[in-house]
């Protein structure tokens, strides 16, 4: 193991220098190494991105820098130099002065990092009073000024609020205000936008960019999202299983990766324009190593397409790989020659969906009692053809999951009609005919809770096969289990395990197999990949595309990720506050003219290569409260193309632009195509 020689003398040039950091956690008597010889440094005023999938040790780095490591964590080796001080050797008194003053952190979930029983004002002023010794009125004034800097409207009012009275975006702004209150030299951002919706995420990221010009803090930006890091950071480090496998300037690194893992990650993210029938997504074979996994050679060797015997025996040191680039790969020169997955695409049996499978008419669902009503779904009318994939896009609270639950019967509908394969679906799931249940199944969002943890995989599949097939013998059912497992590429040895012993991707395969047990005609997929890591997501999407093509099954595919939806969907419906505001063929929806909301969603999507986008469309203001819907067009409170009174007063009509492409807006298509620049021009 090569530990770089400490460069203590050079720390005046570095805002933060991490040298050979190794951290392990003690768990149930075992020591699990989560960080292994991690070294990098951040220059003053620089934003350094740390990317990696779950369990790679990103947060442990952040916690080690702040010295907030969990009690069962142990630093095995290394130094963290901050302003000539080794943080790992600092006294509690020194740390207390540094934290919140010279260095500050913004956490993933703003809702839980603010104290719910204190007003926001009290929490921000505390920073000024403790670290700056301000008096109470001085601190209040400073807090209001700082909130204004984070572009919160009406700071004086916000100061008197409690955290739960603020939206997620506002909460995160408050967190930034607190972090920046003392003008720190180092700002650690640990997935600051992960729990937020895409449009809010875009706003917060814009804010970070603006704040960077105002405050000269160095930033350690931690994220699993390559697009965000590419946009926000000058330099990037890629973590895999506790090792920093690659490092370099972000643009260069993402365009010319020098480690097979980085390349794999970049290739497996679906982007708008990639379609299931052009070619399958690239995916990284195998799965993330379990926590604390220590390989004899390179940690990535088992999944690496260019691994050679040497990789399995020797740990590759951090090798220079070009200008300011480092890679822990012996053969980093060969990375650019790794061929993309060229296997043939799933062949769809024609794109014709003449027969209507699902017909929804004026579906309404509202919750609440006599005194108040919250509309979750309003007047949704959708048709879905046999063998077709309809993507359903929208932010949280848009009603897309409720719609799916209405269709399968997990939620009772308030008004409207659902016809499926000629039959009227009125009754809840428990009362439906066996035949209907066989034809319609669902894949859930969270594979951890979608499978019963007490049952083995075989038992789960056997129960599904037994219930969804009529009068089969025990032997036939066992045969069915094997063919289902093979179809979702589970190995026979997985069948006798309980779900808790499986990785997230394998669990989702089991859930998919269960949904396909009765040869369904329609499968509702409710964010089936949002809980999975990107490297696993690609494999699951390929599997879904394969099954769809071979079984001629229709999907209602719900996702907040436009890239995922555009890869799989034939048609796309966009929902906002319970209404479908745009519906049409996938390609048309992603190109202007389209609904201003769709435009904003697309613009908010961070992509690795889209960093020099011309114009950004941003939504302003929070999502309206669904118990008090805006009048007229529901989107008018946040619309970037707001016209005036007409939007506020009158409900917009459906406008048609091209065949089967409808959107709900007062602006006619000709006008929209004039004002909307042609983003995502090529497919």
């Amino acid at each position, binding site marked *: 193991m090569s530990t770089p020689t400490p460069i203590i003398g050079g720390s005046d040039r570095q805002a933060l220098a991490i040298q050979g950091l190794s951290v392990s956690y003690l768990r149930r008597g075992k020591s699990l190494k989560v960080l292994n010889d991690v070294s990098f440094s951040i220059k003053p005023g620089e934003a350094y991105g740390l990317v990696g999938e779950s369990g790679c040790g990103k947060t442990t780095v952040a916690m080690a820098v702040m010295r907030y490591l969990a009690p069962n964590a142990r630093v095995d080796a290394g130094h963290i130099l901050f302003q000539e001080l080794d943080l790992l050797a600092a006294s509690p008194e020194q740390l207390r002065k540094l934290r919140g003053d010279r260095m500050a952190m913004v956490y993933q979930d703003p809702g839980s990092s603010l104290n719910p029983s204190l007003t926001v004002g009290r929490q921000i002023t505390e920073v000024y009073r403790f670290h700056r010794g301000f008096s109470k009125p001085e601190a209040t004034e400073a807090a209001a000024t700082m909130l204004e800097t984070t572009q919160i409207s009406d700071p004086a009012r916000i100061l008197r609020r409690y955290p739960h009275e603020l939206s997620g975006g506002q909460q995160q702004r408050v967190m930034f205000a607190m972090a920046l209150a003392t003008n720190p030299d180092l700002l650690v951002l640990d997935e600051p936008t992960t729990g937020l919706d895409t449009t809010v995420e875009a706003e917060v990221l814009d804010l970070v960019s603006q704040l960077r010009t105002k405050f000269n803090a160095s930033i350690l930006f931690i994220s699993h999202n390559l697009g965000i890091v590419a946009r926000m950071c000058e330099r990037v480090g890629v973590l895999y299983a506790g090792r920093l496998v690659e490092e370099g300037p972000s643009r260069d690194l993402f365009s010319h990766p020098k480690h097979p893992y980085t390349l794999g990650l970049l290739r497996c993210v679906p982007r708008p324009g990639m379609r299931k029938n052009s070619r399958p997504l690239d995916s990284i074979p195998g799965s993330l190593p379990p926590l604390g996994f220590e390989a004899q050679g390179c940690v990535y060797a088992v999944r690496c397409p260019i691994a050679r015997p040497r990789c399995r025996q020797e740990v590759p040191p951090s090798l220079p790989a070009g200008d300011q680039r480092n890679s822990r790969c012996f053969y980093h020169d060969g990375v650019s020659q790794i061929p993309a997955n060229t296997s043939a695409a799933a062949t769809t049996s024609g794109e014709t969906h003449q027969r209507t499978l699902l017909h929804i008419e004026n579906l309404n669902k509202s919750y609440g009692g006599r005194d108040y009503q919250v509309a979750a779904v309003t007047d949704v009318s959708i048709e879905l053809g046999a063998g077709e994939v309809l993507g359903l896009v929208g932010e949280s609270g848009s009603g897309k999951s409720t719609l799916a639950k209405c269709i399968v019967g997990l939620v009772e509908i308030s008004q409207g009609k659902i016809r499926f394969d000629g039959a009227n679906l009125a009754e809840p799931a428990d009362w439906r005919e066996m035949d209907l249940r066989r034809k319609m199944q669902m894949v859930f969002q969270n594979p951890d809770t979608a499978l019963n943890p007490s049952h083995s995989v075989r038992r789960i599949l056997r129960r599904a096969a037994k219930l969804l097939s009529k009068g089969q013998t025990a032997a036939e059912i066992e045969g069915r289990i094997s063919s289902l497992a093979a179809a979702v590429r589970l190995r026979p040895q997985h069948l006798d395990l309980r779900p808790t*012993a499986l990785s997230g991707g394998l669990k989702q395969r089991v859930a998919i197999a269960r949904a396909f047990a009765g040869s369904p005609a329609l499968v509702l997929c409710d964010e089936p990949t949002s809980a999975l890591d990107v490297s696993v997501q690609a494999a699951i999407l390929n599997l879904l595309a394969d099954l769809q093509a071979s079984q001629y099954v229709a999907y209602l595919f719900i996702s907040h990720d436009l890239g995922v939806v555009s890869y799989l969907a034939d048609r796309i419906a966009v929902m906002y506050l319970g209404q479908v505001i745009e519906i049409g063929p996938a390609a048309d929806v992603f190109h202007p003219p389209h609904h201003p909301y769709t435009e904003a969603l697309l613009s908010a999507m961070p992509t690795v290569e889209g960093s020099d986008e011309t114009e950004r469309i941003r939504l302003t203001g929070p999502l309206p409260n669904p118990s008090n819907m805006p009048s007229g067009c529901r989107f008018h409170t946040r619309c970037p193309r707001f016209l005036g009174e007409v939007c506020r007063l009158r409900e917009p009509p459906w406008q048609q632009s091209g065949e089967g492409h409808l959107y709900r807006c007062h602006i006619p298509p000709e006008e929209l195509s004039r004002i909307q620049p042609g983003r995502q021009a090529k497919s």
Partner: protein
Amino acid sequence: MDLPENAKEGMDGVEDDGVGWESGRRGTKEFFLALLHSKTFVAGAIILVFWIVDAIFWPLIVPQDPEAITPEITLRAPSWAHLFGTDDLGRDVLSRTLAGAASTLTVAPAATCLGVIGGVLVGLFVGYYRGIADDIVMRIVDSLLAFPLIIIAVLVMSILGPSVANVILVIGIVFTPYVARTVRAAVLVEREREYVAAARLLGNSGLYIMFVEILPNISAPIAVEITIRLGYAIFTAATLSFLALGIQQPSPDWGLTISLGRAFLQIAPWEVLFPAAALATLIVAVNLVADGLRQVLEE
């Protein structure tokens, strides 16, 4: 109809080694090992096992017949012949203390079983189906919980009349609402999980979902509840005996012995002291087991 048989294995990101993942759940073996590492649990278990062995094999261990009356040696202080002394009828207190475990350790577990079965049934049904039944049953449960446990037990016992079977029945009934509330709370969490929705979509019956899907996943809170209830059951049974509403003479039952020996507390405190101490160690042991179990399950 037929699914593609493993069309392009290896090309498509097969996760071949998802096995051996760090799982949130432990295997049975690991669970028992963790229990053995818990000092609280082990200490409680040792005392509890002692009393269980004693309750079964007391006829082989007792130095004298616990019911043999010897008028010549009444109310003798502890001595080498009678380690715990003798009572007002000249019976050996040590023998009676050892023999007294049997009635307590029959009544309490049986009553606990009854209460847990009743509570699990009620809790599962109202928790899974909710609706108006849930509202009604839970309001009844709340009102029952408003009364001190012992008052209801005394009330019912004086109606039914004292007998071992009635003691079991009464404690079981009184415990049902407590267990039902715990089980219901656990069911409310589980029923929102997606595996329950998936089971409904497959067309499983409500009974299947409750007993096969949900019940195994709430076994942890039920196990803790059982141990806690057992402690209370021992205490309640002893109290009923003490009030002469439970087991009758000449049984060496601890509660009964304490009640009868009370009259001689001033001159022969050992007649009360030893059965009381025995009762205390048993209750403490059960509570230690309950605490240890809860800590390990919540880890």
